[in-house]
């Protein structure tokens, strides 16, 4: 299975690439061109950086990527990568993919960024890997307009926000599965098995 990581600049993508590669028969490739990144069997949007800069890198390939997702290209968006699946963000200029309607806004909490391990409630994303306590490092969250796409929630202080969204073969997670130890890696593998295959 060909899995492509869209690399939009800063940040650690090694752990994510290796987490994907733990699944059998997976060939991981890194691509900096957003239009060429969709020439794959599974697209992964990794999660480090700022929305504005990432949206700018995405812009030339935005329409191509969006229509690929609408046509059923399996995709996993992580943290900022999840936010890019939404319309727009308070963090910076530019447009996301708009695959999920909604805006990205700052966490309504005293302690921001949220850094650390937190619980996922009511997780119904995948049958082969139930989410429990996962690792977060973020200041912004996705306010999904359609609550039915939310397949897991997390609460930081008083703010309850989508931990996971899913529509069709596209899954977005606000946490970092590649930093959530063995259960996070199990989630990535289950995604490849259940959603992408």
């Amino acid at each position: 299975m060909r899995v492509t990581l869209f690399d939009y600049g800063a940040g650690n993508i090694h752990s994510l690439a290796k987490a994907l590669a733990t699944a059998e028969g997976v060939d991981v490739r890194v691509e900096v061109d957003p239009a060429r990144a969709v020439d794959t069997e599974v697209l992964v949007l990794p999660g480090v950086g700022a929305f504005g800069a990432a949206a700018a890198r995405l812009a030339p390939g935005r329409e191509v990527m969006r229509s690929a997702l609408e046509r059923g290209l399996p995709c996993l968006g992580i943290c900022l990568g999840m936010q890019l699946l939404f319309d727009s963000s308070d963090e910076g200029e530019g447009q996301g993919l708009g695959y999920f309607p909604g805006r990205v806004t700052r966490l309504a909490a005293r302690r921001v960024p949220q850094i650390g391990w937190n619980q996922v409630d009511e997780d119904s994303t995948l049958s082969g890997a139930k989410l429990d306590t996962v690792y977060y490092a973020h200041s912004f969250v996705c306010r999904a307009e359609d609550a039915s796409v939310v397949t897991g929630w997390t609460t930081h202080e008083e703010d309850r926000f989508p931990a996971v969204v899913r529509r069709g073969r596209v899954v977005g997670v606000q946490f970092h599965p590649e930093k959530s130890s063995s259960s996070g890696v199990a989630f990535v593998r289950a995604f490849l098995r259940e959603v992408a295959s």
Partner: protein
Amino acid sequence: MLTRRLIVCLDVKGGRVVKGVRFEGLRDVGDPVELALRYEQEGADEVTFLDISASNEERDTLLDLVRRTAERLFIPLTVGGGVRTADDVGRALRAGADKVSINSAAVARPEVLTECAERFGAQCVVASIDARKDGSGWRVHTHGGRKPTELEAVAWARECVARGAGEVLLTSIDQDGARSGYDLELTRAVADAVDVPVIASGGAGNAEHVREGLTRGGADAALVAGILHDGLTTVGAIKSLLRESGLPIRSTT
């Protein structure tokens, strides 16, 4: 609810984990990659590599080490020691670090915190502060605790956060290596003063000290090193005590 974190610190020099008292009489403790993986398996919530190298050659070794670790470690990895510029931070992140801690360089030029936060996000910028008791407050020191500065620790922590730090790693120089517990007063003062997570460091001698750092000290996370490497206690034993005390702790069983 966010869980409290237990972070294991590994002092790294020339590609190996070393241990000594105040960086003297260093002895080899083991391979950083293997030790990091072992602590992940035991339930550590994060690993920190503190680079105590003196030369640039050794620093290059560290980046290679970070790369090899990131490929196998699936919990957050922080790298600190000798980080001067936003480009240094970028290199560490590209190599596979999730966060980078900045100490002396931030004191010398506080703008570096803002530059890093703007380029890479506040969540990966850790302000590392070494403080020593001085009268009724605490004075910030740099260069491994040897050089006193004009800065007062609580005010400096506030400024670091205002400039973009997403976390504060707070080390008591007085307590470091003493194994009689964290400086709880210092920890509490900083934890009350800033809205980002504070990591208590310096002085843990047993699991009870970790508990006190998180409860009385009000820290979000506790950094431990020597007591684990020396086998005085284990990650599991510390986390069991924390859980029994009613603290929210990530379960790994």
